């Protein structure tokens, strides 16, 4: 049983398009995250939600909008995609605030043409 699952695994699209990435965790965790990993493998936090409430919002362009319909799901919508958005996006979860991300999804590889 996959603990943190992301869809799609691969996303290839044109500049200017709008796309969404979905994330679901079946661990009963109450905190979820989105991380961006660039081509040099550097990982940076984008957003974090605790019980559907936004608790971390890093300096991310407004084109990125997270949504948490319930504590098991955290989706990421991206408007007007740009070349620089090409990266691997990871969803993660943990139990409790102030805890390290404990489980990661396998990532969504986004390529902008």
């Amino acid at each position, binding site marked *: 049983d996959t603990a*943190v699952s992301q869809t799609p695994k691969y996303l290839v699209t044109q500049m200017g398009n709008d796309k969404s990435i979905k994330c679901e965790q079946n661990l009963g965790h109450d*905190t979820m*995250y989105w991380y961006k990993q660039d081509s*040099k*493998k*550097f*990982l*940076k*936090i984008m957003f*974090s939600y*605790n019980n559907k409430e936004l*608790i*971390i919002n890093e300096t991310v362009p407004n084109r990125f909008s997270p949504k948490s319909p319930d504590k098991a799901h955290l989706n990421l919508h991206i408007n007007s995609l740009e070349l620089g958005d090409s990266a691997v996006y*990871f969803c*993660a979860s943990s139990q409790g*605030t*102030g*805890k*390290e*991300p*404990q*489980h*990661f*999804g*396998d*990532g969504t590889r986004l390529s902008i043409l």
Partner: protein
Amino acid sequence: AQSVTQLDSHVSVSEGTPVLLRCNYSSSYSPSLFWYVQHPNKGLQLLLKYTSAATLVKGINGFEAEFKKSETSFHLTKPSAHMSDAAEYFCVVSGNNFNKFYFGSGTKLNVKP
């Protein structure tokens, strides 16, 4: 401000020989420190963590790390490398804002037969 520096971007060892992956941190207070492993096309997996208890921390798969405050280091070691250890390893420090964690740039471990 918190940061981590992974001193080697690539480390190559022979199977059966010891592994040493180096990490130095910078923090204005007593941090929590973590090591994660990332296998190709996979999400990150938590190997071990230090949270101000014992300075020698044991993790999964035979890895351990020692917190040395005087040297601001948290190096990861394993007595005997296995082929399955070949992966990217990330050192992480907690931020003073809860739920913020700062990742190092990663060390790619290659294990030769």
